[in-house]
């Protein structure tokens, strides 16, 4: 393998930096988990690999930015994709802005919140459920005046039209948002407002938001009766 260097180690996969025919690329390799039954492990790994690539493509087709996939290796469950130059995660960005001046942070971050809302609205309108929306799974690149938002890490994604799944998707983001960034309830409300404004189908949007309220009360898991 040509000069793979380890970038990050997560719970699901390792990220390497490598070269793909002259282009810098990221190799995301899902490793075996010995604590899981081998059959279950293989099924889950293959499933996540596939849904990651599928959702990545579907998002692109809807005009949402994602890293370009260069190669899928089913043999060792790895994906070769574009290395997004000079990108930082939304998480790092928010933390950085908050560190500079906590009192004005929410105002500075408002345009970003609007952008996140628009992007998620577009994603849900195409019935793509991300499954793991966090500020670490959103990347920012480009000039501050024309910043681009990329979505990454679609391993837990699915395709559902139901308001329930979309509501849970937003709920997962809300929890991640508020737990990783203090004093950002206002900012999250801003994301929701922009989400509402961008969604063309007002009726289904109202349904999603009311599901979100419902999920907030009961948690992510559905009540199982009968």
């Amino acid at each position, binding site marked *: 393998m*040509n000069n793979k260097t380890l970038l990050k180690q997560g719970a699901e996969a390792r990220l390497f930096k490598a070269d793909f025919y002259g282009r810098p690329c990221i190799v995301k390799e899902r490793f075996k988990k010995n604590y899981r039954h081998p059959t279950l492990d293989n099924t889950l790994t293959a499933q996540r690999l596939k849904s990651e690539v599928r959702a990545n*493509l579907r998002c692109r*087709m809807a005009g*949402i930015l994602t890293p370009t996939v260069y190669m899928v*290796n089913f043999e060792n469950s790895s994906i070769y994709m574009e290395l997004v130059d000079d990108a930082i995660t939304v998480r790092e960005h928010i933390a950085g802005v908050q560190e500079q001046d906590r009192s004005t942070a929410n105002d500075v971050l408002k345009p970003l919140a609007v952008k996140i809302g628009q992007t998620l609205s577009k994603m849900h309108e195409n019935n793509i459920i991300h499954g793991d929306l966090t500020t670490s799974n959103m990347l920012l690149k480009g000039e501050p005046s024309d910043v681009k938002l990329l979505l990454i890490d679609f391993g837990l994604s699915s395709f559902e039209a139901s308001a329930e799944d979309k509501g849970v998707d937003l709920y997962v983001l809300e929890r991640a948002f508020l737990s990783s960034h203090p004093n950002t309830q206002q900012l999250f409300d801003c994301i929701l407002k922009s989400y509402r404004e961008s969604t063309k189908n007002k009726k289904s949007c109202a349904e999603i938001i009311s599901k979100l309220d419902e999920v907030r009360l009961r948690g992510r898991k559905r009540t199982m009766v009968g």
Partner: protein
Amino acid sequence: MAAYIKVPHTLYPDKTITVALYRNVSCKELRKSVMSGAIEVSLLKTSMVIDEFQVLVAANKALHLQHAGTMMTKNVHSEILFCLSPSKNISESFQSFGAADSDTNVVVAIADDQDDERLDKVSEILGKSPVALTELSELADTKLITKAYKVSADELNSYDLRDAVVSRISAKEIITAGKGKV
């Protein structure tokens, strides 16, 4: 510097991929040699190729599938053609992405060409040397490519056509799974 490129495969550095472009030639003779099995190379339609990276991604995948033993077609060179195409239909892929007798330009992709033996043979049959691959951009029919790969206007707003095409090539079996007849 030579006009063509020859690079080692990302996963198997002992295997190589060669890509070369020929202009103002007659493909008829060369196609005959390839069809009869006299020379094993892949002949691609220049109008369907944006740049060499697109061919590299397809060839990279074909060699990988050969190694994994999961090729859909009978040899690695037909597999390069099939990988390049977004279609699941093999003969349809050959028709729209393979060079035709009447074509006067052709992209040649070769897997594992030791000492450039087969490339030299292609040059000999065509009676020409390969030209710079940068000329591919003049020959690509972006309208046709957009249509063949079903790239929407929404997508072209955010991406260039090459990236859209490349992702479809690399994810082909995943996005076409379960859709339409095999």
